[in-house]
């Protein structure tokens, strides 16, 4: 077991760090406060090839490993959690299932531009009445000759509106429940495919979240991803990977919150000494650090298992649950250390706390992670 990062991995972290420092950090507060999804920033991030890190070169990627990608998500999240999920949304939730389940033609047509970063991707599974229970899908796809007619809507979709390529799940046979779900690749701009309201969220304000609306959208049969009726499997396996991305995002948020808290505790003087000289604060900081390191090992382990082609469903569930809880706990403690200033939006810790909350919810709530883990444990 080698806990050291390779030279390549360190280099990718440096790339993401440079980008974070130069492009994200200077404007993140303003973009967060005004809910700005900055297309230029995203385009520049994609131009750097951050969406193609672990895909093979023949599909527009760099041929590096999954951990390299996860490290970049973590690093970006330190500066801007919204931008990090934009990346994870296009890579883990859109490019990855096309790579895993797509035909050669689909990979050429869709994976290549996603990996090269000329296009952005998204994933649409959740509906008003189908969240954790995906079998409640009301979006339907009816076969009509050489295409399907798609009707329905999806909510809370990261990258919606901005993305060019969407993985959309719909019922092709309602009588079969989960076995009646099919995955499709849908392009922005197709007739009848529109976007609903932009979500007003608690955090990750710099990412864009909207509703997808499908009204008699003609989807060519060749855009079916995987097999008819096997969409549930596509969704679950895709979310396994997405969970590592969210776990990395959570890890980055936690690290940023700790770094801010450490710095503040050295500067803020009360009763004649800096806060960090009080054991009540220094132990709090140490506790935050311990939780982060524990989470880090779980996140990296899940990424390495995915890379090795081993089953990683449970590892991803554990990593996501632990890292997101750590992000929440650590960011709340960071706010506490900042005291009144922590509650002010003038300091970044309030943003970290707001951003952390979503990591306990999306890509499967943390309760789902317990279901996954318990299920495997009691099999």
């Amino acid at each position, binding site marked *: 077991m080698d806990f050291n990062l390779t030279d*390549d991995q360190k*280099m*990718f972290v440096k*790339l993401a760090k*440079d*980008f974070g420092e130069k492009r994200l950090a200077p404007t993140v507060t303003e973009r967060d406060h005004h809910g700005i999804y900055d297309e230029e920033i995203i385009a*520049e991030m994609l*131009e*750097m*090839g*951050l969406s*193609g*890190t672990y895909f093979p*070169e023949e599909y527009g*990627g*760099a*041929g*590096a490993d999954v951990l*390299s990608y996860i490290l970049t998500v973590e690093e970006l999240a330190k500066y801007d959690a919204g931008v990090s999920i934009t990346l994870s949304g296009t890579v883990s939730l859109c490019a990855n299932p096309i790579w895993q389940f797509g035909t050669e033609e689909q990979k050429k047509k869709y994976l290549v531009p996603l990996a090269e970063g000329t296009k952005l991707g998204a994933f649409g599974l959740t509906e008003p009445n189908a969240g954790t229970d995906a079998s409640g899908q009301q979006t339907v796809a009816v076969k009509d000759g050489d295409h399907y007619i798609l009707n329905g809507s999806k909510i809370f979709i990261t990258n919606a509106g901005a993305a060019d390529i969407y993985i959309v799940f719909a019922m092709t046979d309602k009588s079969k429940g989960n076995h009646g779900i099919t995955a499709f690749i849908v392009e922005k701009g197709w007739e009848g495919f529109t976007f609903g309201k932009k979500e007003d969220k608690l955090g990750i304000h710099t990412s864009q979240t909207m509703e997808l609306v499908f009204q008699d959208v003609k989807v060519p049969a060749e855009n079916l991803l995987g097999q008819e009726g096997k969409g549930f499997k596509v969704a679950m396996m895709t979310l396994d990977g997405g969970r590592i991305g969210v776990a990395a995002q959570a890890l980055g948020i936690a690290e940023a919150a700790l770094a801010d808290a450490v710095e503040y505790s050295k500067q803020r003087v009360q009763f004649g000494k800096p806060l960090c000289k009080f054991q009540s604060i220094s132990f709090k900081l140490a506790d935050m650090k311990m939780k982060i390191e524990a989470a880090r090992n779980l996140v990296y382990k899940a990424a390495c298992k995915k890379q090795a082609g081993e089953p990683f469903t449970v590892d991803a569930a554990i990593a996501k649950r632990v890292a997101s809880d750590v992000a929440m706990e650590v960011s709340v403690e960071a706010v506490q250390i900042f005291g009144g200033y922590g509650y002010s939006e003038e300091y970044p810790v309030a943003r970290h706390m707001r951003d952390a909350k979503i990591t306990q919810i999306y890509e499967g709530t943390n309760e789902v992670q317990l279901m996954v883990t318990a299920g495997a444990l009691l099999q």
Partner: protein
Amino acid sequence: MEILVCVKQVPDTAEVKIDPVKHTVIRAGVPNIFNPFDQNALEAALQLKDNQGAKVTLLSMGPPQATEVLREGLAMGADDAYLLTDRKVGGSDTLATGYCLAQAVKKVAEMKGIAQFDIVLCGKQAIDGDTAQVGPQIACELGIPQITYAAKLDVDGDKVTVKQQNEEGYIVTEAHFPVLLTAVKELNEPRFPTIRGTMKAKRREIPQLSAADINVDESRIGLSGSPTKVRKIFTPPQRTQGLVINEEDPQVAVDTLIEKLTAQKII
């Protein structure tokens, strides 16, 4: 159009500390970075590659680990890279460095099968030494014109038009190829290396040149060939922050000033 960009690996000066006793730079644990002004020089070259199909070659002089910045430059989009590395050139001052680099520029041109480079681009200075001498010295050694502190540049045919930055404003200067230019920060915003470029750059062979390869007079290089001797490096004493009294009413301002000066026993 053949462009050569001189790049240097430097310690990140934001992290550098000076040993208060020995008066030397503490290098241990300080990360090395791509000299920022050299990144501006490279970006200018890469823009000429994007827009006019220029070929971009990198050259660095330094220890073997300087290949790191060359690989970073390749990952940003440069076509070729060469490293001049030899213990004999270690300790060179700016004069000796300029001489070595000029010889290396000639050698690289020969290796590439071209008569000479049309443009040699350098950063205005390296952030470790801050001398801003090496670029001009390379031009002198090569016997080509130089335009320093380029804040904007246009290339039309074999003519370069440069907006040259100085303390009072700008001077617009023209020159024909071959020419050496040095870049300031205002010239552009350097692009980020790409992940794919980084992976490709890793596999690239970077030819290394020795002092013998570049045909130098050994009495003009290295510590012994350098007329400059560094006696001492020190951190200048930090000036304490001044106080600005900014009152609308001059009477109040004067009263405040008198009060402060009296309290400090100055008057």
